[in-house]
């Protein structure tokens, strides 16, 4: 086993990993290493060939490959080292809990043991697999997750099928509906069990409506037929409790079923390392700088909670990279106190789950939250500390698909020192 040392080790080279590594170098960490299991840097972005990336970060509308190429260049110029085709297997703690050792394996170097001063988790997320869905029937070929289909079509260059049905209306599913249509295949239908689309409205317009793809809300797939290969699926409308309504069944002939039913943060490594996981988000419990419950371990990007915009992923990674560098240079304040953040009325979750005081301007602390239920009229997003209202933000509508950001103001420090916690509520205005 080869032994390596570094100041900051980043696991994963998606937009989160690259930005965290870049920022750690910019903030003074001497030796920053990124480990990536794939042959190329970039995480999920090389297969996201559509545009819509970087509008806030670079003020330009880039495709996934262009966005990630910029960050790879910036990281390289900042002196970040990278190891591709290398997979992290475990994160071990020293008996006193003060130090971390990362075990990785690579085709070229065999086993590696790396002792970083600070560690950034940036492993992204994976798709909810088919097994998580209760679709009965045989298991014929022709059932893919939307992201796998995206990889087949955009990287490997072959089509999953000729006639597709898409279950779920997440962004990847909608983007694939357009992609398959552009490649000359047919998308017979998109079915969503919820009464509203679960991805972004802009994707509904430019990926589904622009191409006249039939969209069925409050509808699910109840059966998949076919022995070797999918031959048809049966769809049915559902009631409020998601039970199929008898008499609404329809058989749609098709050869391929794509699943776009959500993403889950990839945290097997974090869990095994003793990092506290939030059962609601599926990601580590963090503070505003991405610090997890394990000292010296930070997290950023989709590994924390699923983002819809890459610009927000990058912002979270810049915060985590900065604090990882601070940890590596031992300049972090030892004395600080923490406030828990509670998801109140119509709030599904809030990240960070705890806020460390005092708030400092350079940190750019932001609360990121999603609502449980869409409200298609004016609402107020209220941030309070033990009933003391800090912020009352008016929005024209809220939807679970659109993350809401609330900037935390350092001028609140005094009001927060005696508080027991923060809470966010979303109510009709």
């Amino acid at each position, binding site marked *: 086993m080869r032994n390596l040392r570094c100041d900051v080790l980043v696991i994963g080279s998606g937009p989160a990993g690259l930005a965290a590594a870049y920022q750690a170098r910019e903030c003074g960490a001497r030796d920053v290493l990124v480990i990536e299991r794939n042959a190329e840097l970039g995480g999920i972005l*090389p297969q996201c*060939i*559509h*545009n*819509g990336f970087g*509008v806030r970060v670079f003020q330009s*509308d880039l*495709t996934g*490959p*262009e966005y990630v*190429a910029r960050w790879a260049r910036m990281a390289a110029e900042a002196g970040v080292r990278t190891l591709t085709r290398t997979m992290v297997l475990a994160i071990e703690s020293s008996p006193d809990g003060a130090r971390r050792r990362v075990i990785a394996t690579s085709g070229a170097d065999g086993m590696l043991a790396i002792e970083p001063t600070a560690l950034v988790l940036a492993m992204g997320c994976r798709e909810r697999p088919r097994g998580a869905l209760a679709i009965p029937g045989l298991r014929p070929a022709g059932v893919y997750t939307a992201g796998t289909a995206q990889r087949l*079509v*955009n*990287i*490997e*260059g072959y089509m999953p099928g000729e006639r597709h049905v898409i279950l779920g209306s997440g962004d990847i599913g909608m983007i694939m509906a357009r*992609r398959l*249509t*552009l*490649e*000359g295949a047919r998308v017979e239908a998109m079915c969503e069990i919820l009464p509203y689309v679960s991805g*972004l*409205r*802009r994707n*509904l*317009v*430019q990926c589904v409506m*622009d191409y006249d793809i039939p969209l069925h809300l409050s509808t699910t797939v109840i059966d998949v037929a076919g022995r070797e290969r999918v031959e048809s699926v049966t769809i049915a409308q559902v009631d409020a409790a998601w039970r199929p309504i008898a008499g609404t069944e329809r058989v749609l002939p098709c050869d391929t079923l794509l699943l776009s039913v959500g993403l889950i943060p990839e945290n097997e490594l974090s869990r095994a390392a003793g990092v506290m996981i939030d059962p609601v988000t599926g990601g580590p419990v963090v503070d505003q700088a991405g610090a997890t419950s394990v000292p010296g371990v930070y997290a950023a990007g989709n590994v924390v909670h699923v983002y819809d*915009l890459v*610009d927000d992923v990058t912002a979270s990674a810049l915060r985590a990279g900065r604090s990882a560098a601070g940890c590596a240079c031992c300049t972090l304040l030892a004395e600080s106190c923490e406030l828990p953040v509670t998801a109140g009325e119509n709030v599904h979750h809030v990240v960070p789950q705890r806020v460390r005081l005092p708030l400092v301007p350079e940190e750019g602390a932001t609360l990121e939250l999603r609502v449980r239920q869409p409200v298609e009229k004016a609402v107020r997003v209220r941030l309070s500390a033990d009933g003391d209202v800090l912020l009352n933000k008016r929005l*024209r*509508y809220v939807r679970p698909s*659109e993350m809401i950001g609330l900037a935390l103001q350092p001028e609140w420090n005094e009001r927060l020192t005696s508080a027991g916690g923060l809470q966010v509520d979303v109510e009709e205005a």
Partner: protein
Amino acid sequence: MEEQRHFVCVTCPVGCNIEAKVRGTELLTLVGNRCARGVDFVKEELTAPRRMLTTTVRVRGAALPLVPVRSEAPVPKGRLLEIAAHLRDVVLDAPVAEHQVVCADVLGTGVDIIASRALERVD
């Protein structure tokens, strides 16, 4: 006749919900756009909608069989399928440079198709 119409601006990922009052193809007033580009978007939607096109073309001699490409500017919405079908027959030879023109003035639209990434040559 004046009518109220709803638009989702697709110019950037913010995806503003715009309520517009229009008369035929003429825009009278609008609310909900967070920037001026939303006004241009609605005007174009009423007359000649355009969209960005992103797709892939085949490459010979690289580690990957495809290179992702995009239109340099939005193209007429009604011609997206036709342009995508045309690009399915294009084959490039590696190496490919980022932003290399893959197909100039595609189908006479005045818009170039460019590569979204670089691909090295492997022999």
